[in-house]
């Protein structure tokens, strides 16, 4: 049988006089687990939300941009391939054997299309390297960030819980066991609080840095996008310029072309073998 000592004076570890946690003596019961005092000042919380909010938006935008870029380049490749199909199918048609003039035209056209396709492939590769890959890398930072924010949140919850525990003991009558428990609670609270503050500070520092890093980070990507287009279309201009000189009459207006087409169609329509409706 043991009996507890009537009074166990507090000694041993010195309780730090923690100026921040000054429990207010209230007689109104409060919810267990919620500290009475606002742990994190509203302004700080607001700043945090704002910075994190910006980053969440950025995450969303970079993901969407990556997806759109991929879709765009895939469609680009498909389009180029279907252009090549136009000329290569014509080239393999027996008509080319039967009409030498036509053969010459279609061969030149086919060569041009194939060259354009290979330039297109190069362009897409360049975009992959200088835009899509960097986007992916940038996006890969977000999971770590989100994890860190979550951990901060967990810590905050722990902090709040421990804080309210301390406050609970601080309100009670100061008996020996109570004091021991209070001491213990404070001991528990302190590292958690410090941890939270560390996390909070670190994130508040890093998040804006990361956010503003996007500007310099993506500059090369956007420049590359513009540059790559210029390269591709310069080739296109040259190749088709040469081709037009070879197989077509340059300088015709659209109206003239339409009239020429219509003239041929009328000639055909005039034939009896062509049904008119």
């Amino acid at each position, binding site marked *: 049988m043991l009996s507890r000592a009537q009074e166990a004076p507090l000694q041993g570890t010195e309780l730090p006089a923690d100026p921040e946690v000054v429990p207010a003596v209230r007689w109104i019961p409060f919810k267990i687990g919620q500290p009475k005092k606002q742990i994190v000042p509203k302004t700080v919380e607001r700043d945090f939300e704002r910075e994190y909010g910006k980053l969440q*938006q950025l995450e969303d935008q970079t993901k969407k941009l990556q997806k759109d870029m991929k879709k765009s380049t895939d469609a680009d490749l498909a389009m180029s391939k279907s252009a090549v199909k*136009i000329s290569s199918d014509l080239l393999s048609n027996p008509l080319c054997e039967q009409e030498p003039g036509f053969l010459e035209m279609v061969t030149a056209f086919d060569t041009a299309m194939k060259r354009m396709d290979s330039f297109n492939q190069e362009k897409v590769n360049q975009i992959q390297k200088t835009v899509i890959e960097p986007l992916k890398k940038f996006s890969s930072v977000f999971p*770590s960030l989100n994890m860190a924010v979550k951990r901060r949140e967990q810590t905050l919850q*722990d902090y709040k819980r421990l804080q309210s525990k301390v406050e609970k003991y601080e309100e009670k009558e100061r008996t020996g066991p109570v004091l*021991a428990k209070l001491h213990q609670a404070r001991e528990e609270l302190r590292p958690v609080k410090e941890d939270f503050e560390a996390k909070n500070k670190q994130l508040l520092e890093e998040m804006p840095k990361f956010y503003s890093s996007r500007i310099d980070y993506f500059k090369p990507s*956007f420049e590359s996008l513009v540059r790559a287009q210029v390269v591709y279309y310069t080739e296109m201009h040259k190749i088709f310029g040469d081709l037009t000189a070879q197989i077509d009459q340059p300088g015709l207006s659209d109206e003239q072309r339409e009239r020429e087409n219509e003239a041929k169609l009328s000639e055909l329509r005039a034939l009896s*073998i062509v049904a008119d409706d």
Partner: protein
Amino acid sequence: LAEHPAGMASPHTEEPPTKGTADPDRMELSQRLAVEELITTEASYVHNLQLCLSDIRAHLQQKQLPDFDLEGLFSNIDDILHLSRQFLRGLEATAAQEHDQLLGTLFQEFKEEMETVYKIYCASYEHALLLVESYRKDPRLQEEIMDTLNATVPHTSASDLSFFLVMPVQRITKYPLLLGKILENTPAGTSTHQALAAAVSAMAQANANINEYKRQREVATKYNKAEHLTLRDRLARLNTHSIAKKTTRLSRLLMHEAGFVSKTEDKEYDNLEEKFQSVASSVAGLKENVASYMAHLEAFLVPAPHKRELQMEEGPAQQYHRLAEHLHRAVFPEFKRRLDRLVWQPLCSLSEMLVGPQQLVKKRLDKLLDYEEIQERKSELGSVTYDEEAAMNTYLAINALLVAELPRFNQVAVQLLGQVLGSLCVLHQDLAAEVLHEAEKELKQLPHGHMPLPAFWRLVEDTLQQAGAQLRTFTQAFETVTPGPVTQPLTPAEERKVLSLVSKHGPDKLYQVTSNVSGSKDLDLTLQRGQIVALLQRVDTKGNTSRWLVDAGGPRGFVPAAKLQPYSPVQSQQPGMQTPTLESVPDRRRHSYASPEAPRPQVATFTPAFQVVAGFSFAARSPQEVSLQAGQPVVVLEPHDKKGSTEWSLVEVNGQRGYVPSSYLVTVPVQEPMGWSLPV
């Protein structure tokens, strides 16, 4: 007078000029009369044409009747009028000069134009008659027509338009007859006779050509439409006759293929048809490919990556945005529009036109089989029925038609294809020019717009590499935001486990699980958040440094390194407490825990991170017990007594060892933010 065009003169109407005694004077008189008849009838013809055109047609035109096909009725009667007026003038001129030889020459001069103009009119005459018939049945239109006739030509006994419409058809057949009459009254052997004879045969030939043309047109119109018959329609068409016909054809076709019967070889036609098939397949293929291309173009314009601006107000992002916006909004739509007008539409029209010839080619083959069949019978029996003769003629007509027109078709179609391809080239050239025009503007504003390409790409590569490194530091920074202290209470069993781990492996090998781990592979461990393990290896059997081998106080296995956090028993501040990361990149920043401001408790340095403290004072009552001062830290040696009861713990305090009541002990965390408390 032949009313029906089928009754046109046959090619040989040259009558021998042997009418009894050649009385030169009578002959000359007859000749003169015949010439006069030619001229007067021509004059009256022209007059009637005039009436028809300027009065009747004009009157009807003014009425602006809906559903009234003026073009179909009157066809190219203006051309006929124009031609005939000229011809009449020529006739009058030759008569004035009294040189009959000139007459022959005149006909020769006009024969070609006559053929060209009349054949069109005659070929559409049947259609005009059908129109007249249909309008006669419509009381309202009939009334209008009668009204016009009464207003313009009351002196004639015309009851409907056909009275006038038939005139050109009749006239052209008259020329050989009238000429013939003149010829028979011309002395043979003279140059005039020769000239006139030539004129007669020329006119006869013209009539034959007009006939042929008409027949071809009829056959073409009959067969060049694709029939869109449902299965029901096809079945309805079956009767003994049609079945017999098709069976005969099929057997003949099989005989062809098997070589039993020689095919009617027509090299010329075969070449034409082969060419035509190539043209047809080129057109069809091109149309399909262009459609596919246009669909891809549409798909290309759907994603709008330039709309995601990443909130970058200025700089290259904006340049790109502007360029892409312009391309999407202006340049490509224009390209699409021109593509439609200059490539797609013509291809569609050309494709439609293939149908007629394709049908005729099919029909020709059918009719050829019939033809051969009948031909055989003809050589056996000597003659064939009227219908069979007609069927043979149909084949001949189709064949002639195709041979006549396919070359032109093929040629024009190929030319059109060439034009379309040319347009396609120009469209690409213009597209490129437009893009470049806009891009040059943006390029100027880019920071490295002027840099030559190879240098630019190198620069980009280098910059991106550096940027990648910077990203890694950000990732590091975020990852080293420490996982929170695990504030779950440790069970006594866990505590004991920790002690044994420490004694086995040492305090510096301890790690705490930061979030639940569920093992998936054989040797993986499943652990709860907060559990303590001891590190055995920083790498798994395959060399993967993200899986660590740990001792969980009994079971041993692998856990992801990312879910472990060092659990340091040492009090002093640990610089560089890194969570295990995959890379060995030197941290640009080392995260250190915030150091507590509290003075350190007096504890022995080898104690684990939890600290046991006396909660209350206790006075030892026996040599096995030891006294405690409240708040005094103690070292728990055994959390139970010799009998195993946990009510008492063996502790060391102040250099003394002994038992104390377990409930008098409290566990408090040291300054590291890992700690837990026993439930109070």
